């Protein structure tokens, strides 16, 4: 039973189609990399999977014990965040909100989980720092810790290494791989074909050269010269 199934999705804005008739499925433990040119609809697809945007037709189904609110998300950065007064701990904890329901405050277990995720991502020493004063790589880790608080099952990452230096990029990829080995399904948008073919188990190529399948098929098709 796949965790996420997209059936005949057609996506677009105000009648302008961006992606048409897209179908694919992501199983538990998969590592799917979405690649494609700028504007090919990668972020749009991710927003649709998250339920932030309604598809023009088709549907997104969740299964395999995954509920639609258990999807962790690492967004492309927005402008508002740049000068927002928020401590790292506050940001990470906000990932627990989907467990709260109408309860107004975090439980002890939820606070504990936030601390553990900060330790896991090596940002425990930054807990009291201001989010906006961190480096890009540190900020990505904070957002990833927040996403981990929201779910232990599946993570959607929109360009997690954009703007990171080579060292931080390598660290980030390794971190994601560790999480994937720990059983978390990964769907990642990336412009880095080399990383995609190195780490992913499946590739979805949007745009003119459409492709969906396993990494090996992808390499075969492109003649092994990725």
């Amino acid at each position: 039973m796949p965790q996420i199934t997209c059936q005949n999705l057609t996506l677009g804005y105000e009648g302008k189609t961006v992606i048409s008739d897209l179908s694919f499925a992501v199983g538990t433990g998969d590592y799917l990399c979405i690649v494609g040119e700028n504007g090919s609809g990668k972020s749009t697809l991710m927003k649709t999977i998250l339920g932030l945007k309604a598809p023009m037709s088709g549907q997104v189904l969740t299964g395999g014990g995954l509920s639609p609110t258990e999807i962790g998300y690492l967004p492309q950065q927005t402008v508002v965040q740049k000068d927002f007064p928020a401590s790292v701990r506050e940001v990470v904890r906000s990932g627990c909100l989907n467990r709260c329901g109408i309860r107004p405050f975090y439980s002890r277990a939820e606070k504990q989980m936030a601390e553990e995720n900060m330790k896991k991502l090596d940002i425990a020493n930054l807990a009291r720092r201001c989010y906006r004063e961190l480096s890009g790589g540190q900020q990505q880790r904070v957002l990833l810790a927040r996403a981990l608080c929201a779910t232990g099952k599946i993570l959607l990452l929109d360009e997690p290494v954009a703007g990171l230096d080579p060292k931080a990029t390598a660290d980030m990829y390794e971190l994601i791989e560790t999480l994937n080995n720990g059983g978390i399904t990964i769907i990642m948008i990336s412009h880095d074909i080399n990383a995609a073919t190195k780490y992913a188990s499946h590739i979805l190529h949007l745009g003119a050269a459409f492709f969906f399948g396993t990494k090996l098929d992808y390499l075969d098709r492109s003649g092994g010269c990725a």
Partner: protein
Amino acid sequence: MIAIIDKLVEFFQYEFVQYAMLVGVLISLSSALLGVTLVLKRFSFIGDGLSHVAFGTMAIAGALGLVANLILVLPVTIVCSIFLMKTGQNAKIKGDAALAMLSVGSLGIGYLVMNMFSKSSNLSGDVCATLFGSRSILTLSHSDIWLCIILSVLVASMFILFYHKIFSVTFDEDFTTAIGVRAKTYNLIFAIVIAIVIVLAMRLVGALLVSALVIFPALSAMRVFKSFFSVTVCSVMLAVVCTSLGILASIVAETPVGATIVAVDVACFVVFSLTGFVLRRG
């Protein structure tokens, strides 16, 4: 010095001064709570815009001969508030342009309508009072005071109950929606509450002061503090302190209340900016 204290003591024997103080502090507190989120959502100007909308609608209500003008003013302002919050992100007219249009437009039309239909002999006095607040401390009716108390308690308790959700929705609306929190609903509630607070506060203290009360405490607090919690706590305290000081100063110096409070807020902002600057250097 002793003369000043004597003067204050004398004034505080009057019930209406005590009430004015109470109402001023409560309104500042509510506005400051809402202000933190508004400033962070880039809606600093909404206090200004909505109070001008309320002004325009009041003028029209007056021309129509409506005595209980809240029946008209409140719904119109709420609708505008929701509309402005919606235009925030992706719309044909940019959020700030829509706000500026609405603000200036209703100010102009309101003044026009007042001029054409008002039966008052002291028109400019009326306009001035609505925009800048009354010259001296208001004599508030008991119903005004109760309304104000109930409203502030409501705003404060909503803020406390939804504190974590408000933080998350303000920080990252997409993420919050994605993990199943109804961010849209919270935005809607927020738009309604801000409209109500602005309309009621404006009748008591004037449009100028309302917009100042919304932005200044939050902006000052953000100069120095860096977590959402400390900014919130600090701006509430600043709001209360600045408003109290402003009212006291206006009694002593016999200056217009609203304008004096704004001046204190500005001074406070300068002090906090300098402090923030020094802290960053040191």
